[in-house]
């Protein structure tokens, strides 16, 4: 399914907010299923499974730990004289786990099915300032370069201080070197930005364009209607 990235952003926000509204655990489960279906449609089975796999550890912790916080209601499991699991604890654990999955799937389907340019253009279209978009765009282009440089600095410091050198010594030396390298490149980069016309008014790179706003509005209206109908339906269940 091809959705406008602005609509996908609105969808992620809606799915995040809706699971915090007063709903029963069944209602939250329905919205979790909806977010998984959206993820399947937007980023396919492999992307959805990859996203779900990254949640595994947290889900185990949530299921194990959350019931301990709520100790009221009908006792479901006893361990000798000790009441291990209460009904309200189980409901809390399930609601928390469903909520976590729903939010995670909403954001991973947004990011897994959109390019960096689409997300930046959407943020700009939704009101984020031009300078903020420029900073995010520059940051995303610096991360691989700074990451590679930091790895090389780390290796050099290890060689300089020897393999038996104390961990904290080469880590500290690497951190200082990486910061100095980054700061040294700040002024030339600023000059490069200016010479390319950035920070001047009225000049925008027009290489990437989103689809027409009308289509995005129609998709948003359709989704909003779907959410409104589903919320009323879930509340009535």
């Amino acid at each position, binding site marked *: 399914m091809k959705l406008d990235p602005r609509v996908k952003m609105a969808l992620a926000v809606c799915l995040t907010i809706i699971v915090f509204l007063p709903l029963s655990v069944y209602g939250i489960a329905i919205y979790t299923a909806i977010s998984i279906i959206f993820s399947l449609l937007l980023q396919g089975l492999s992307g959805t499974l990859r996203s779900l796999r990254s949640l595994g550890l947290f889900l185990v912790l949530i299921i194990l730990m959350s019931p301990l916080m709520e100790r009221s209601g009908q006792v479901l499991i006893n361990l000798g004289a000790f009441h291990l699991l209460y009904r309200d604890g189980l409901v809390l654990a399930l609601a928390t786990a469903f909520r976590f999955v729903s939010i995670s799937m909403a954001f991973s389907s947004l990011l897994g099915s959109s390019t960096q340019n689409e997300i930046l253009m959407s943020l700009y279209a939704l009101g984020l300032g031009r300078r903020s978009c420029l900073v995010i765009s520059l940051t995303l282009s610096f991360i691989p370069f700074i990451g590679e440089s930091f790895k090389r600095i780390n290796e050099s410091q290890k060689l300089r201080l020897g393999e038996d050198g104390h961990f904290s010594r080469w880590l500290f030396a690497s951190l200082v070197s990486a910061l100095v390298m980054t*700061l040294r490149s700040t002024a030339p980069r600023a000059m490069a930005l200016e010479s390319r016309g950035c920070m001047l008014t009225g000049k925008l790179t027009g290489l990437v364009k989103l689809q027409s706003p009308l289509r995005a509005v129609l998709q948003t209206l359709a989704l909003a209607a779907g959410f409104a109908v589903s919320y009323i339906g879930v509340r009535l269940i």
Partner: protein
Amino acid sequence: MTRSSKAIRASLISSLTALAAVFTLLVKIPTGKGYLNLCDVVIFFAAFTFNPLIAASCAGLGTALADVIGGYPQWALVSFAVHGLEGLLAGLLARFSKPLALAVGVAIVPLGYLALGGLLTGYAVALMEAPLNLLQSLVGAVLGVMVSRSVKASYPPVYDLLI
């Protein structure tokens, strides 16, 4: 503000933000319960060297981008809010008292993740993670102060970037 200072500010924020993301993604110190990352080193460096807004921008954006790139996008908004507040408060308080700025900055991380992370994973899990967050923040703050002094000594032109 002149045009050149705007360009330097954009360049500085994006460089420090990228560095915060790299320190979050690449520097992992193993502990018994998991890993510590060193994003707080850049946050405290920015707070003690530049101004609160630069510290807040690079802290919030850098950690949020690291979460997105690292495959944990659900944490991006929580990281943005908690670390952004950490950078802002540390930068503001550093103008009056550096020990106070350190103490508040260190306390914000476990408390913020407890309050906001608790909404995401439940308060039992958030409570379990609080000691590790406190340790990470503490190590980052101590290293941040030391790194800040070393950088200022080894690269004096950093003062020219002060806005």
